[in-house]
């Protein structure tokens, strides 16, 4: 404790100043810094996936073009899908989990700060490993769903698919660790009075998403293990010649894959459930219903996976069940939409960029929801399966839903993280170019799909008469790309010299706005006591909380130690998985040694200052 005492003498506040510099970021266990690293990394991968999409759009602009080869096209669409889902949409949501959840529940950090850092580093290394495949001109090329038997060593002899299954296995570890961390944080670390039914919706949706993560990821982990054993050690899981069943892969993939869809969308629902009330100056309409609808979506999301497989021929009974389940899941989703509209109804609405993106989500996601209802019907699905209609649908729900929601969150919470506003003029440019570019890209795909243009094919015949839709889509994609550049320009400019933001720039109701922007590294000098769902909107409660939260800590609060073991363990895990690619058992066994060593050192290292 003597070192603490000396440092206290240096600063008038009594708490440590937060260190800066590269090493402090590498060893950080601060959820706010980890969030920023998540966000920046995911944004970089967003551009990587975006460039892949743009190349495909130019290839498809006119029929029978050959700007790129069919093989490169296969790699591009596989990497675009894998990147956007696993390296962009998921980690960007996790960036917000990290930044916002501890602040919203009144905690000083997450339950397992080092595990949190480990998740980030595994995500980074896993993403780099996946993209390293480009250096060998062997990027994965069997689509993001990796159907058997296309992925077998017979039909995909190169290392392309190895890069895919290994990097996804690595990334899965980060997701499970993240899920465990946020469940524990939300169950265990709420400030006094922060009952479950007082938690902001974003925290609630993080909670539901975390359950989906810890339950869905193990299923694909096993499927990937089967695939890896088939490819490297000659097992026969997906080998029809030996009695294996390729449809098993589809089941396992989609048992993971459909909850995954809700892993992507629920965080966005959470964001706009916080943004819309703030900018309508009204509490969320039907709070418990929105919470229950979110939980219900999480549950039913487990019973709809075979709607991805109607063309397999599972029989009328199975198909009917999944048609019904899929249509039922539209109900809680619709309930939420009505709740958001009812929240705005009669409110004094401020059209900030965050609010515009939230309203944009309502409009665009609903279009995606409606096309989803269309191919929820098995007979209709047979017509639309594997066409651009489906491509239009899932971009409407994932970009129009998940990404729009996260961008709303970006404009909403950026002032908290940086102490500065994002430029609203640029923000509105970002929003409108996104809306126009996005709709121009994906709306025409409904038509080209209906006219029979198949997805995942590098070109199409002029006789199909879909050139005009593809040209519109390509023009739209260019506008959409411009919107992304505007966003990054805005981020960079505003981070450096944006207008200064106060602690509560929006007049918002939740705890994260009760502390300075940016927050101290310990978040709360003392933990506030919460007495309602909108603590900062209630006279009396607001003053009581601010009296506690706006001060500075008189002594260094009990904060976790920085650690370099997360990055080392993440590196050794990535190395161990990379060695799996050799297929030589003793090399693989050797790879486990550093993992074991780092885990041991991690376990022996004190997580908190007083632990030694």
């Amino acid at each position, binding site marked *: 404790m003597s070192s603490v005492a000396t440092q206290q003498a240096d600063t008038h506040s009594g708490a440590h100043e937060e260190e800066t510099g590269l090493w402090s970021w590498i060893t950080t266990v601060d959820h706010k810094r980890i969030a920023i690293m998540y966000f920046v990394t995911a944004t970089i991968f967003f551009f990587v996936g975006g460039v892949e999409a743009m190349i495909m759009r130019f290839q498809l602009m006119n029929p029978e073009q050959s700007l790129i080869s069919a093989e490169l096209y296969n790699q591009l669409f596989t990497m675009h899908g894998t990147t956007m889902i696993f390296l962009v949409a998921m980690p960007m949501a996790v960036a917000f989990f990290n930044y916002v959840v501890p602040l919203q529940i009144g905690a000083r950090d997450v*339950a*397992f700060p080092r*595990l949190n850092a480990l998740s980030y580093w595994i995500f980074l290394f896993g993403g780099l490993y996946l993209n390293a495949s480009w250096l060998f001109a062997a990027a994965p090329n069997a689509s993001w769903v990796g159907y058997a038997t296309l992925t077998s060593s017979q039909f995909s002899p190169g290392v392309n698919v190895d890069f895919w299954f290994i990097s996804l296995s690595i990334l899965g570890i980060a997701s*499970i660790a993240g*899920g*465990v*961390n946020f*469940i*524990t944080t939300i*169950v*265990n*670390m*709420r400030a006094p009075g922060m009952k479950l039914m007082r938690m902001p919706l974003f925290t609630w949706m993080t909670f539901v998403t975390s359950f989906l993560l*810890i*339950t*869905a*990821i*193990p*299923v694909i*982990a*096993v*499927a990937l*293990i*089967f695939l890896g*054993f088939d490819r490297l*050690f*000659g*097992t*026969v*899981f997906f080998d029809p010649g*030996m*009695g*294996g*069943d390729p449809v*098993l892969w589809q089941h*396992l993939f989609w048992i993971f894959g459909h909850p995954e869809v809700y892993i992507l969308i629920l965080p966005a629902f959470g964001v706009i459930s916080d943004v819309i009330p703030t900018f309508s100056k009204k509490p969320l309409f039907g709070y418990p219903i929105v919470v229950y609808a979110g939980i219900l979506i999480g549950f039913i999301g487990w019973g709809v996976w075979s709607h991805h497989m109607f063309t397999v021929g599972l029989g009328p009974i199975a198909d009917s069940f999944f048609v019904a389940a899929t249509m039922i899941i539209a109900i809680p989703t619709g309930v939420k939409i009505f709740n958001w509209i009812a929240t705005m109804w009669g409110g004094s609405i401020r059209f900030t960029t965050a609010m515009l993106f939230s309203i944009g989500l309502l409009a665009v996601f609903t279009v995606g929801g409606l096309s989803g209802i269309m191919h929820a019907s098995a007979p209709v699905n047979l017509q639309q399966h594997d066409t651009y209609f489906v491509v239009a649908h899932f971009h409407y729900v994932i970009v129009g839903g998940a990404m729009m929601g996260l961008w709303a969150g970006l404009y909403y919470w950026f002032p908290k993280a940086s102490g500065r506003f994002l430029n609203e003029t640029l923000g509105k440019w970002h929003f409108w170019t996104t809306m126009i570019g996005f709709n121009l890209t994906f709306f025409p795909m409904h038509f080209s799909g209906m006219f029979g243009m198949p997805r995942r094919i590098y070109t199409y015949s002029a006789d199909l008469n879909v050139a005009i839709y593809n040209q519109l889509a390509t023009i739209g994609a260019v506008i959409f790309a411009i919107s992304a550049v505007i966003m990054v320009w805005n981020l960079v400019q505003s981070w450096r010299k944006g207008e200064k933001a106060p602690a509560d720039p929006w007049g918002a109701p939740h705890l994260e706005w009760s502390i300075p922007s940016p927050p101290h590294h310990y978040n709360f000098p003392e933990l506030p006591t919460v007495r309602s769902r909108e603590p900062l909107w209630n006279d009396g409660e607001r003053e009581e909380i601010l009296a506690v939260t706006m001060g500075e800590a008189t002594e260094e609060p*009990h904060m976790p130690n920085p650690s370099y073991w997360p990055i080392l363990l993440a590196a050794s895990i990535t190395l161990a998985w990379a060695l799996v690619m050799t297929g030589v058992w003793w090399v693989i066994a050797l790879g486990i040694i550093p993992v*074991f060593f780092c885990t*041991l050192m991690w*376990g022996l290292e004190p997580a*908190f200052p*007083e632990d030694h």
Partner: protein
Amino acid sequence: MAQAAAADHHATNTGISNFKLGFWTFLASECLFFGTLISTYMVYKGTALVGPYPAEIFSVITTTVSTTVLLFSSLAMVLALDAVQKANKKAALWWLFAVIAMGGIFLGMEFQSYLKYIDYGLTLTSSTFGSSYYVLTGTHKVHVLFGMIWMGILGWRIYTNRIGPPQAEQVEVAGLYWHFVDIIWIVIFTLVYLIP
């Protein structure tokens, strides 16, 4: 609960320490992991195109013996935790040693069976039965092995007085893991070996 709070330095909302709650959550995840492996085995039951088939090679007697040994290791685990909580270092070390030894006997017997099955011609690549059987039970064995190493480290820390009654939760959580691995084996034993 005072122990839990002391180990974690934080009062938690549930009174359960973060470490223990997080570990329970992880075990929930593990349930889905083994659930998928076991389901695959069940789905592939009877799809093997070539022998040997399960009924020809499984010996219920041998597996019952190894299963019993593993089950008794859970009892030893409980007694080890009890001894740590009561600051009985010597007993704690003996019971942990018993856990590791019984885990070792289980693994030894199982590998003996593996060798026998391979002799009969059942390999990782011979049929859907071989693939799903070895990957399922192999994953379980890796879990047992990991548990044994964990117990070894705990034993060393008890021996060097780094774990006493205030840190007993470290042993308790390792015990959760060990019991979980046991319970999974009971499911595997029932579904794989007992159902003809």
